[in-house]
C-alpha cells in the first residue's frame, strides 16, 4: 500500500468523526457571508479505519531510534525512554491552559522550576529559561540575551559575533537573525580554534564568541580557559552551543569553563524524542549577573507560610518575549523525567560512556577510514572518507550503502573542514554488539569499495525507495497533493 497519499483515499461522504448536535441555536449562519470561506475546502474525507491503516503502514516506511542505530554526528540520537512519554501526557498537565490562575498550576510551574535548577547545576550556570522551542531558537535567544546585556551597558558598538569555521550552520544564521555580523575564525589542523587567529579579532565591536566544546570534530577545546579570558578581557561574552554537551555530562561544566551563556538541546542530551523534526526544546542558561536579560515570562518562587509559591514575572530589562508561553512544556516534562531517572549516578556515566563508544568505533575503523585528526575524541569524530582514495567511493556512497544494512547514515559533508566528512556519534545507549555490527558493515563497505565498487555506488538497494531525484524536486517544486495531481 506504499505510496498512497491520504487524499487518494478520500471519497465524498466518508468521515472519521461523529459529533453530537449543538443542542442550542445555530449561530454561524448569522455571520455575514462576506466574512466566510467561499472556496471549497479540499480536505480528505476518510473513515476512521482507513485513517488508522494509512498512517500505520506509512510509519513502517520510517526509521527511528526504536528501529535501529543512528550514528548521526552532532545529533545525539539516544534512546527515548517510554516512561517519559507517559509522564508528559498525564491529563493533569496536558489539560492545563496557559492563562489559568497561577495557584491552579503550581505543579506545572514547579516542574519548570525544578528542571531550570537541574539544568543550571549541570551547566554550571545561574539560571535557565526553558522558553526557547529548539536549539536554533535557543541560540537566537542566547544572542539576544547578549545584545540586551550590551545594550543595558549602552555598549552599542558590539555588532560582531565570532564563530569558528567548524561551527554548526545555525550559529552564523542565528547571529544574522539577531542582527549581528558574523566573523569566522579558523581552526588549527587538530580541529581546535586557533587562539592566535582569534586574538586580533577581539575588540570593542565584538558582542560574543560562539563555540561548542567539544567542537564539531569531537575535540575538546583545551585552550578554553585562555579563550574565555581573552573574550572577557575585550568585553565580549562567550556563548556555548550545547549541541555537543553530551560527552561532558558528569565530567565538566560549561559555566566552569568560562562560558557566560549557553543553550541545551533537550532533544539531544536529555533524550526527548526528535519526532521527525520536532518539537524540540532549547533552554538557555546564563551566568550570574545576566539573569535579568532572560526572556519573559520567567518563573520565580516565594516562600509563603512554609509553602513554596511559584509565579510568573515579566521583567523590564528582559530581552522580551520569544515564545507564546513557557516553551514546549510537554517536552520539558520528558527531560525532567529523564534527569530524575538517571540521577547523579547515571548522569555521571552518560558522558564517559558516550565518549567510550565513539572512540571504540574510531579505533576499530581507522585502518580503513581516513582519520584527519588523530586524537582521543569525545562523543563524536570525523572520518575524511576512505583511506584508499583510489576507489572513487564517496562519503555519500558509504552513507547510502549503510541504509541497506539497517543503519541510519552518519552526518555527511559536515563539518566543512574536510571534503569527505563522515561524522559519527554513537551515544551511550548503544551496546558493544550494535557497535560491532556497525563496524563490521563499515569494514565490509570498505572491502566492497575495492572489490565491487558498483554495489556501493548504486546503493541503497533494499530501501522502500531508491535514489530520489532531488534535482527535479528543486527545479520544479511540487509541494502539495493538488499540484501533484496536475503534474
Amino acid at each position, binding site marked *: 500500500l506504499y505510496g498512497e497519499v491520504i487524499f487518494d483515499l478520500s471519497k465524498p461522504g466518508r468521515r472519521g468523526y461523529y459529533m453530537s448536535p449543538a443542542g*442550542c441555536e445555530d449561530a*454561524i449562519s448569522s455571520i*455575514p457571508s462576506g*466574512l466566510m470561506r*467561499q*472556496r471549497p*475546502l479540499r*480536505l480528505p474525507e476518510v473513515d476512521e479505519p482507513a*485513517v488508522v491503516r494509512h498512517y500505520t503502514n506509512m510509519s513502517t*516506511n520510517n526509521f*527511528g531510534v*526504536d*528501529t535501529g542505530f*543512528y550514528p548521526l554526528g552532532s545529533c545525539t540520537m539516544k534512546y527515548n525512554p517510554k516512561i517519559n512519554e507517559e509522564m508528559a501526557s498525564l491529563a*493533569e498537565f496536558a*489539560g*492545563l491552559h*496557559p*492563562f489559568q*490562575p497561577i495557584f491552579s498550576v503550581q*505543579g*506545572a510551574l*514547579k516542574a519548570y522550576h525544578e528542571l531550570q535548577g537541574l539544568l543550571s547545576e549541570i551547566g554550571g550556570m545561574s539560571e535557565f529559561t526553558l522558553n526557547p522551542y*529548539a536549539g*536554533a*531558537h535557543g541560540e537566537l535567544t542566547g544572542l*539576544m540575551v547578549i545584545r540586551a546585556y550590551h545594550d543595558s551597558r549602552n555598549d552599542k558598538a558590539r555588532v560582531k559575533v565570532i564563530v569558528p569555521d567548524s561551527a554548526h550552520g545555525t550559529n*552564523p*544564521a542565528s547571529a*544574522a*537573525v539577531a542582527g549581528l555580523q*558574523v566573523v569566522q575564525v579558523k581552526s588549527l589542523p587538530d580541529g581546535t580554534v586557533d587562539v592566535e587567529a582569534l586574538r586580533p579579532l577581539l575588540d570593542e565591536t565584538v558582542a560574543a564568541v560562539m563555540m561548542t566544546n567539544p567542537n564539531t570534530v569531537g575535540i575538546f577545546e*583545551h585552550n578554553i580557559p585562555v579563550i574565555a579570558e581573552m573574550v572577557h578581557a575585550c568585553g565580549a561574552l562567550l556563548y556555548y552551543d550545547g549541541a555537543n554537551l553530551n560527552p561532558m555530562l558528569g565530567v565538566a561544566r560549561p559555566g566552569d569553563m568560562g562560558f557566560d551563556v549557553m543553550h541545551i538541546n533537550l532533544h539531544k542530551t536529555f533524550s526527548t524524542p*526528535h519526532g521527525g*523534526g*520536532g*518539537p524540540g526544546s532549547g533552554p538557555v542558561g546564563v551566568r550570574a549577573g545576566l539573569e535579568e536579560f532572560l526572556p519573559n515570562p520567567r518563573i520565580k518562587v516565594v516562600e509563603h507560610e512554609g509553602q513554596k509559591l511559584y509565579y510568573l514575572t515579566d521583567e523590564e530589562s528582559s530581552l522580551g518575549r*520569544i515564545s507564546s*508561553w513557557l516553551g514546549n512544556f*510537554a517536552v520539558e516534562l520528558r527531560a525532567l*523525567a529523564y534527569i530524575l531517572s538517571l*540521577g*547523579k549516578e547515571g548522569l555521571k556515566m552518560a558522558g564517559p*560512556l558516550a565518549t567510550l563508544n565513539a572512540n571504540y568505533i574510531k*579505533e576499530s575503523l581507522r585502518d580503513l577510514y581516513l582519520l584527519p585528526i588523530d586524537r*582521543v575524541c*569525545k562523543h563524536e569524530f570525523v572520518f575524511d572518507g576512505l583511506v584508499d582514495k583510489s576507489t572513487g567511493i564517496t562519503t555519500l556512497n558509504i552513507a547510502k550503502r549503510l*541504509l541497506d544494512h539497517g543503519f541510519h547514515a552518519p552526518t555527511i559533508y559536515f563539518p566543512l573542514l574536510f571534503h569527505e566528512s563522515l561524522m559519527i556519534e554513537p551515544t*551511550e545507549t548503544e551496546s558493544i554488539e550494535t557497535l560491532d555490527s556497525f563496524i563490521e558493515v563499515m569494514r565490509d563497505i570498505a572491502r566492497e569499495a575495492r572489490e565491487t565498487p558498483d554495489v556501493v555506488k548504486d546503493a541503497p538497494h533494499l530501501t*522502500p525507495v*531508491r535514489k*530520489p*531525484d*532531488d534535482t527535479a*524536486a*528543486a527545479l520544479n*517544486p511540487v*509541494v*502539495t497533493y493538488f499540484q501533484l495531481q496536475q*503534474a
Partner: protein
Amino acid sequence: MIHRYFPHTPEDIAKMLGRCGIENLDDLYADVPESLMLRRDYDVPSQMSEDEVRRYFKELAESNLQSTCFAGYGFYDHYAPAVINHIISRSEFLTAYTPYQPEISQGTLQYIFEYQTMMTELTGLDVSNASMYDGTTAVAEAVMMAVANARKRNRVLVSSTLNYLYVDVINTYARYHGIVVDMIPEKDGVTDLDAMEQMLASGDVAGVVLPSPNCYGILEDYTGVADKVHAAKSLLIITAPASALGVIKSPGEWGADIAAGEAQSLGMPLNFGGPNLGYMCCVKSLIRKLPGRIVGATTDADGKRTFVLTLQAREQHIRREKATSNICSNQGLMALYAAVYLSLMGPEGLREVNEISCARTHYMVRKLEETGLFEPMFPERPYLCEVAMRYNGTVDLDILLQTLCVDYGVLAGVQTDDDCVVLCATEKRTVEEIDALAEAFVSAHNDLKDINSQN
C-alpha cells in the same frame, strides 16, 4: 551494570578501553584541564526507579487544578480523536530524526507533504512549509520574510487588534533584527483601516500584519485591504487560528501574500502552552523566501512517487550567515498530529466543529447576559467562538475569576482589562457546562458581595 538505559557491562567497558589503548574512562578526558574537571557528583538527586518517577510526577500533576475551560486567547480546547495519539505514539514517527535520508524516511516526508497540502487548503495559499515552532514565532518569521523580500524597507505595520503575545514576540524579533514595528490603531474593536492606509503612504512599509478573528474574537472585514497594501509595494500577512480557517474567509481569499499563525486549535492538547504548531504559507512567488523545511514530490530510481526535503539551498545550514531565518527544525510530530486530525475531520468535520463552537459561544453570551453581570463589548461585531465581554459586576473581576477557578472548577476566560474578559466555548463545552458557568458567576458574585459587605 550502570543504569538500565546503558548496555555497558564491566567486561564490555574493559574490552572497549583495550581497543582504545587506554586504562580507564578518565583517560578519555586527559585533554581536559584538571581545573575544569568536575570532581564531584552533580548536586542532583539519586537515580529514581520508575515507580518513584511516577509518584513524583503524579504528585506534581495533582498539584494542578483541572478546570472546565472557557479560555482561548490563542490556546483552544477542541476535541482530539483517540486515533491521533495512537498514531503519533508509533515509535517509527516519534523517535525518527529529521528526514535527511529520504530512502528510510518516507513516513515523515509523506505526512509533511500531506500536512503542507492541508495547510495550503486552509489558508488558501499556494505553498506551505513543514511547520514552525508556534504561532507567535511564525508571525515574527513572516515579518522578517516580508522585510527580507522588500530588501530596503524595514518597517512593518501590525494591527493593535492582534493578540498581545504575538505583538510581543514580533517586537522582540524586530528589535534585534533592525525592524521598525508600528501599531495600527484599533477602532471599535477592529483594525482602523483608514489609519493603516495613511501609515502605508510613507512608502517604507515592507509588510502589514492583520488578524481575523482578532484578540476580541471579532471577525474583521478586510475587503479591499490587499489592494491597498499591494499598491504600497508591501506584503499582506494575515493570521488566524487554523481551525477557524475551516469556515472563515481564508488569508488567500482576502488576497494575503503570507498566512502565518497557530494550528494548536486542530485538536491539540493545551499542554500549558506547548508544544503548539506554527504554520506558514505563502503565494508561489515567495517560495524561495519561505523559511523552514519544505517537502516536495519527485520520483525515485524506479519511477516511484517519492518525497524529499527540497529547496534546501534556502536553509541555514547552506546559507549560514546569509540566512534570514535560523530555523532548522519544525514541529514534525505536531504536523503529523494536524494531518491525522484533519484526515479524520475532513471538511465536514471541521465545519461542524466551528458550527457547534459558534452556536455554543453565542449561547454562552446569551446566558452571561442573562446574569446581568456581562454584556458583549462589541455587540454589533460578528464572532465565531470567542468573544470579549464587558463586566458590570461590583466585585473585582480578577477575584471573581479566581473564585470560579478554585470553588467551581471553571476557567472563565482570559481577563484582558479591569472590566473585560475574553471567553470561548468550543464544541467540547456542553450546554450544561455553559449553564453551570453562568450560575457559577451569579453565585460567586453574590457570595463575594456578601463577604465584601461584611468587611
